[in-house]
């Protein structure tokens, strides 16, 4: 691993890429480029794009498997760009790539870094990589303290919950847990709100009409009871679950009764995995944005002859942006063409009320109205204000689905998928096309569950101090043979009984014994309502 400064040619290209990014007025953090050999590249990927990681068998497994795949030609070792965003951002170049490819990687990284800086999910933060390096040191110390066997057992247990992480969910830690600090903040806020209310005209008549039962005795009594229960729990435990908590790893990190060494492992796990949520929720916009700026900057580099190989670049880019069916979505392809399409819309003034309200189809088709707004500013605003869900909801149409080949499926694949003849709207020798209309809905559905079961902590005092997990039913059963070992692993972290309520079954793991009981699971809405009313979300009969 060496700094880009050690390679004059790449250093020059880096300066040109940054120069053009500056000309295009991009908002960038400090970017540090490093050059890695093939082996280091594979290893970096196994370490979640951080240069170090604590010892764990999973990384070892991936590494031996990858090495075998590379050696036997089943996998290419040419990873083009790998970047860990943040302030500063660390980007890694593969030393086997030629100068043109390295330039394109750097240009691509510009897009990712800016997206991370600006996006509504506020991905970028200070010293992310340094923080993980620091935590790695702590975990290595923890390993010495715990002994290798205990360390490995605890690490493996944490692996079971690393996908149960949702820092940006509606039911994240902040929104589902009351702590003394958050309560104090809320009180200050409500006082601020009160003072705001004092300054605006107040009608007691209107207040009485709107909340006529507000001051009823019963209501006041219940509210007081709730307040008391909450403050009792808070004073006893330090926190209170007020709503289902989807950020399970976050919860365990904060509130499980772990030793300092175990806490470091949980802290590390959370730090390296918490950005996955951002990645998965913004992948299309993010990759599209990176491809968009890569193309712009590369065009400038070719123009000024800072690097050569435009034909080769075009070949590689078209390979990267090869269209795939919607269920195999290629974020590079879809993202890039969506941004291009949006740029055209802004250029032609089509993102306006006039255009939407126009009823003459001919006028709409030939619509071209200059506006004073720069398309790129509007696109940047989109980056700052939405994620993939909103991006697709607003701009993806059935026509675009057709244009981007999202409804085109290879015949062999269609056969494997068991596609019926009725589903096919047209076909040629190689492909079949399906109806583009429902595809947008299907793509949006992905963001509801992200192909993962939605599991929440709904009770932290179930069966005398146990955790009750709730699987929000969406019609699909959980993999049954993994429920017991997963509960066992959570039990190891929580150090108390752990139960899972899924469909009609309650699985319990307590004191080393696993049980399965029939139970009538309430719906998620009922659970939320009960929790808001301060009731137990579920009681086994």
């Amino acid at each position: 691993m060496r700094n880009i400064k050690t390679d004059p040619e790449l250093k020059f290209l880096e300066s040109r890429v940054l120069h053009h990014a500056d000309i295009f007025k991009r908002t960038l953090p400090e970017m540090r480029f490093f050059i890695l050999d093939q082996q280091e590249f594979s290893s970096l990927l196994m370490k979640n794009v951080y240069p170090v990681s604590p010892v764990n068998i999973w990384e070892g497994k991936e590494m031996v498997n990858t090495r075998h795949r590379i050696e036997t030609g089943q996998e290419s070792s040419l990873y083009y760009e790998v970047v860990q965003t943040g302030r500063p951002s660390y980007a890694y170049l593969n030393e086997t790539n030629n100068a043109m490819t390295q330039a394109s990687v750097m240009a691509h990284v510009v897009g990712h870094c800016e997206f991370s800086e600006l996006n509504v999910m506020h991905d970028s933060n200070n010293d992310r990589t340094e923080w993980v390096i620091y935590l790695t040191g702590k975990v290595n110390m923890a390993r010495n303290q715990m002994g290798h066997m205990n360390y490995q057992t605890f690490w493996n247990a944490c692996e079971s919950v690393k996908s149960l992480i949702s820092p940006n969910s509606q039911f994240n830690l902040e929104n589902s847990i009351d702590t003394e600090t958050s309560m104090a903040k809320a009180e200050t806020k409500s006082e601020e709100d009160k003072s705001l209310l004092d300054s605006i005209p107040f009608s007691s008549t209107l207040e009485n009409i709107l909340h006529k039962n507000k001051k009823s005795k019963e209501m006041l009594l219940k509210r007081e009871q709730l307040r008391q229960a909450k403050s009792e729990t808070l004073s006893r435990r330090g926190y209170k679950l007020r709503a289902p908590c989807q950020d399970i790893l976050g919860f365990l990190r904060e509130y499980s009764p772990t030793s300092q060494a175990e806490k470091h492992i949980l802290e590390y796990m959370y730090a390296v995995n918490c950005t996955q949520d951002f990645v998965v929720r913004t992948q299309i916009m993010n990759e599209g944005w990176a491809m968009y700026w890569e193309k712009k900057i590369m065009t400038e580099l070719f123009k000024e002859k800072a690097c050569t190989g435009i034909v080769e670049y075009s070949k590689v880019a078209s390979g990267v942006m090869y269209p795939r069916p919607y269920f195999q979505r290629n974020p590079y392809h879809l993202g890039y063409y969506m941004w291009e399409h949006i740029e055209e819309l802004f250029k032609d003034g089509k993102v306006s009320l006039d255009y939407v309200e126009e009823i003459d189809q001919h006028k709409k088709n030939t619509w071209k109205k200059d506006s004073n707004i720069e398309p790129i500013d509007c696109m940047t605003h989109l980056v700052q204000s939405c994620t993939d869900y909103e991006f697709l909801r607003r701009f993806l149409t059935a026509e675009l689905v057709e244009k981007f080949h999202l409804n085109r499926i290879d015949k062999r694949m269609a056969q494997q998928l068991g596609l019926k003849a009725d589903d096919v709207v047209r076909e040629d020798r190689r492909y079949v096309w399906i109806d583009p209309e429902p595809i947008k809905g299907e793509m949006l559905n992905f963001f509801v569950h992200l192909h993962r079961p939605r599991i929440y902590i709904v009770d932290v005092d179930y069966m005398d101090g146990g955790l009750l997990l709730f699987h929000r039913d969406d019609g699909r059963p959980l993999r049954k043979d993994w429920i017991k070992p997963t509960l066992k692993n959570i039990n190891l972290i929580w150090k108390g009984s752990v139960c899972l309520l899924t469909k009609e079954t309650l699985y319990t793991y307590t004191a080393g014994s696993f049980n399965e009981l029939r139970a009538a699971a309430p719906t998620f809405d009922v659970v939320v309502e009960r929790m808001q009313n301060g009731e137990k979300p579920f009681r086994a009969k």
Partner: protein
Amino acid sequence: MIDAGKNKLPTGLFAEDKINSNESEGAFNEFIDDKLKDLVENIINEGDLTSFGERDSDIIVETDDINPPRFSYGGGEGGEGGGKGSDGPGEGSERIRFSLPFDRLMELMAEKLRLPNLIKEGQGKIKEVSYEFKTFGTAGVILDKKRTFRRALKSNIGTGDYNPDEDKYDLLIRRKDRRYKLPERVEKPKFKAVCFYMGDISYSTYGERLELEKRIVGFIHNWLNYNYGKHNVEHRFFVHDSEAHEVMEDDFFKVTNAGGTRASIVFDLVSRVAFNEYDPETTNFYGFYFGDGELFSNDAEEIGEILNKDLFPIFNRIGIVEVKPSSISNLVERLRERYADDNVIRLDRVDNKKEIIKAIKNLFGEKQYA
């Protein structure tokens, strides 16, 4: 999001680091040791040495994938089947493949078969001499620039010549700052071995018989290479019918001839080659004979004489194996009268692949089995 806050972070990050997963790979290898032991056990029980792959090369191990159990959709409705790992890992439906280093496999085999390491002789006669630069001194030839610079920087900071706060960037390297790499002589004993493989081409070496012979030869080849180092063993191949010749390795399994058999001439040839071409003081000799054991007249006596007179004094081990012997095979039987408990000469018969492991134990074990 996490913020490093006021935590003190390492400086000089990534200066000269190399990213690797060596420790994790080691942990994984340790973790799957049980699986590897199963593999070796399978090889031993089945007598199937084909898993060795190419000679001296890493072998490919294919096993069920292991994954940390987690809440996920689909599959695995079979109750207790999959995620049973007590420490967390569960088994997935996929398969993983990876290379197992040759030496590690041989180590496991030796452990399982309880084969002792071969006794190497000749140490002290030949030494592998190398120089390692582990120490540093104030005088020498090879200047250690890094250490010198570091010392110079310290001295200059001490003397105040280097002080960026006062815009002083002069760096004077004095004689006393210089550090030189000093060579250290490292001597390691080097062992040399030669192995003679002798084959009878007059009998029908094809089909199962050929396979059995190939597997035993393959194992011997690997075992000697593992013990002495790949480049320190010479493997030589000899065949005979009524005459004896040296052949290339590939031809050892190919050439056949129908006709009379005199095995003693190949032993005689090997003894001459051993004496004339190698220094018995510094060489470890191994010889292995494979044939159907159907010998005529006094062949066995002649072999016995050569063994006693010429080979026994200088050879570390001699193995005589009858492969798929017939009812008139008599070589092993006749030699067993003399060498039943011998430490140098080992005798065995192999009738099917399940007997290969027994033969290997016999050839390389601490004592000879009947």
